């Protein structure tokens, strides 16, 4: 009888790390509830802010921007929390003791952040539609909204994972994450908001804005994810 020791493959390590995050979430439901309720509250604030203007204002023109405001604030909240429970109980030290490629940690963490954000969006985007877009008629190809949402979420979660790893070790981490996160994701936000507004308004030639904007956002994603992936090793080891 012999004991077979096998080094787990990188993909297995990735799966284990991702499962740890998801299991923790399924047990506590901390992220989804806090992000979901926060998003709902932001919607309520929008309602108050637009209370007087709804009749006169063309809501279609601003709703794309409002939707992205909602997503940025919600993802800030989620990203802030995502490394907090790694610090408690010394979980991060434990992970770092395992002989694995550090960028696997980045990929697993970014994936779990993407999944949480997407889960929150699945709830909040219909709510957003219900509260603000049922009174007006959005463009024909409204369903294409899924694409900028997906591209934007991937980019935000990717760069946000790197930044939240940085800020979790600083004083005043909540403020610090916002100070770094908002200017750095600005290009992505700009492109995604343009694409979203173009299809929500659905005017003639909307696709001429939509596809270039989407392509640029995707380009940002690729560059920034690669950069974060390369730099993550330095950050997590510091």
């Amino acid at each position, binding site marked *: 009888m012999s004991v077979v020791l096998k080094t787990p493959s990188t993909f297995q390590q990735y799966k284990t790390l991702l499962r740890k995050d998801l299991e923790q979430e399924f047990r506590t439901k901390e992220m989804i509830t806090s992000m979901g309720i926060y998003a709902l509250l932001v919607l309520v604030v929008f309602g108050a802010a637009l209370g007087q203007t709804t009749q006169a204002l063309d809501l279609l023109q601003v709703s794309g921007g409002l939707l992205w405001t909602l997503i940025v604030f919600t993802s800030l909240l989620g990203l802030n929390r995502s490394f907090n429970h790694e610090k408690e109980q010394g979980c991060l030290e434990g992970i770092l003791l395992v002989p694995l490629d550090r960028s696997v940690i980045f990929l697993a963490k970014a994936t779990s952040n993407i999944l949480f954000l997407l889960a929150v969006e699945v709830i909040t985007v219909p709510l957003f539609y219900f509260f603000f877009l049922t009174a007006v008629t959005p463009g024909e190809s409204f369903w294409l909204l899924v694409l900028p949402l997906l591209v934007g979420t991937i980019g935000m979660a990717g*760069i946000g994972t*790197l930044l939240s790893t940085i800020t979790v070790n600083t004083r005043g981490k909540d403020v610090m994450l916002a100070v770094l996160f908002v*200017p*750095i994701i600005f*290009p992505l936000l*700009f492109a995604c908001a343009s694409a979203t507004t173009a299809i929500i308004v659905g005017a003639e030639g909307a696709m001429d804005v939509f596809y270039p904007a989407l392509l640029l956002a995707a380009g940002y994603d690729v560059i*920034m994810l690669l950069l974060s992936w390369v*730099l993550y090793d330095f950050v997590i080891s*510091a």
Partner: protein
Amino acid sequence: MANAKKSHALPEGGQWPDAIAFWAVLAGAVLTTIGFLMAFLYAGPVNGASVDGMPEMIGGQMVSSKLLLSQKIFYFHMPVAIVSFGALAFAGYYSVRFLMTKNQRYDTCAKVAMEISLIFVVCTMITGDLWTRFEWGVWWTWDPRLTTYLILMLIIIAYFVLRGFIDEPERRSIYSAVVSIIALVDVPICLMITRMIPSSIHPVVLREGGMTGDMGMTVGVCMIGMILLGFGMYRLRFRQVRLAQRVQALKDELEEN
């Protein structure tokens, strides 16, 4: 333990560029002053128009004398903007070097280059905003280059806020190196994205061939002056920071022995 390592390699007390740093600042100050005078006395207004209080016809558009004069901002705006981005590029380069070697000297280089970049970015914002006010008639517009510079300024400020928020020196230098590399990559993307989506109202000067010889000369003098100023300020500040580090290292060494 860290101190024992440092005591063998004290931060150096000045290098050869320090000897010319002061003169570089002086020459830069003189050249930018000459450039300022040239902008008003030597370089003619756009397309040979004259400033006589009467509106001029340029390219099928009526241009008032106020606009012809406010065009002079350009001679300072463009060099300052180029130097600010150059300083950021140097900060990015030193950050990459730092991550490669973990040599604390590169961290100091990157930090000082960022400081210089911040000064020039703020100058760019001020001159650019004056331009915006008089040429386009508004204080602020979300034009691609204005937006990019605002984002650049915010990232540089975030860089210094981050430095202030971390206590451990090694962690601080690694994190700030990472952030400055991200900033260097992010800013061109920002310009590209904001530029390719909506229509731009920024004048594309060189591509249209809108500069005459005397204007090019003035821009050149200002450009050289600004580069010298940036370089000289960088060296002076670097020497100051580096000497302070040297004093600290010497103190630590004395305490140990």
